[in-house]
C-alpha cells in the first residue's frame, strides 16, 4: 500500500469513526429509564448503542494503524496513546491520543460491566462525555480536511445532534425531578429513583 493510500484510509476512517461515535453518543444520551412508557424499544436502543460503538472502534483501529504505518509522517505506536509525544503534529495528534485513551477506558469498562459496582461503572462510562468533544477537536484541529465545506457541515451536524440529545436529556431529568418532588409532597415518601408524571404513562402497556 502506498503512503497515499494509507493517508486516505486514515482520513476516511477518522471521519467514519467520528460519525459513528457521534451516533453512539446520541443513542447513549437518549437512553431513558422509562422508555417503556412511550412504547419505545429501549433494549433495542441499548443494543444499537453497543453495536455501533463496536463498529466505531473498528474504524478507530483502522485510523490509528494506518496513521502509524504511513511512513510519510512520523507517528510512533507510543504516540498513539501517550499524548504529545509524536514528532508530527505534536499537539493535535496528542489531543487524538487523549481521546483514544478515554475511549479505551470507556470501552474496557463496558466489557467488564458485570464485574464492577454500578456506581463505579457509571462514573467511568461518563468519561465518554469528555472523550467525544476531544475527538471532535482532534478532527478539526488536525486540519487535513477540515476546511472542506462538506466536512464543516458534517461537524456542525455532529455537534447539533449531540447538543439536541443533551437538551432532551436535561429536560427529562428536570421533569422527573419535579415529578419526584410532587410525589414526595403528596405521599410523604421520597422515592429513591426518578418518577414520571402520570400523563406520560398513558402509553405504557398493561400487564
Amino acid at each position: 500500500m502506498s503512503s497515499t493510500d494509507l493517508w486516505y484510509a486514515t482520513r476516511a476512517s477518522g471521519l467514519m469513526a467520528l460519525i459513528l461515535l457521534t451516533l453512539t453518543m446520541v443513542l447513549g444520551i437518549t437512553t431513558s429509564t422509562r422508555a417503556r412508557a412511550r412504547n419505545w424499544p429501549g433494549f433495542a436502543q441499548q443494543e444499537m448503542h453497543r453495536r455501533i460503538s463496536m463498529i466505531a472502534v473498528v474504524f478507530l483501529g483502522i485510523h490509528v494503524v494506518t496513521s502509524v504505518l504511513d511512513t510519510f509522517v512520523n507517528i510512533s505506536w507510543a504516540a498513539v496513546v501517550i499524548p504529545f509525544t509524536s514528532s508530527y503534529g505534536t499537539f493535535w495528534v496528542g489531543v487524538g491520543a487523549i481521546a483514544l485513551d478515554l475511549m479505551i477506558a470507556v470501552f474496557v469498562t463496558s466489557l467488564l460491566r458485570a464485574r464492577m459496582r454500578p456506581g463505579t461503572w457509571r462514573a467511568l462510562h461518563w468519561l465518554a462525555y469528555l472523550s467525544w468533544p476531544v475527538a471532535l477537536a482532534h478532527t478539526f484541529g488536525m486540519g487535513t480536511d477540515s476546511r472542506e465545506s462538506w466536512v464543516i457541515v458534517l461537524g456542525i451536524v455532529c455537534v447539533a445532534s449531540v447538543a439536541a440529545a443533551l437538551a432532551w436529556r436535561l429536560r427529562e431529568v428536570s421533569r422527573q425531578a419535579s415529578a419526584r418532588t410532587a410525589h414526595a409532597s403528596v405521599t410523604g415518601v421520597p422515592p429513591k429513583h426518578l418518577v414520571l408524571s402520570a400523563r406520560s404513562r398513558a402509553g405504557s402497556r398493561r400487564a
Partner: protein
Amino acid sequence: MIRILIDPAACDAYGYCAELLPEAITLDEWGYPVVDGKPLPPELVDTARRAARDCPRRAITLRERKGGR
C-alpha cells in the same frame, strides 16, 4: 426448573426484560415487571439469561429450583 427472580429494590423500570421476554414478563401500569413465578419453558432460557445479563440495574437473577414452591 428455572424461574425468573426480580429484585424489586434494584429494579428501576427500564423495561428491557419485558421487551426481550414478553412471554414471561409483563409490565404493570407503572412500568414495573410482573413475573408469574412459573418455571421458564426451555426455549426461553437463553433469552432470559440475556435479559439478566443486560439489565442495567442487575435486578434479575435466574433460580434453579427443584419442584414447586
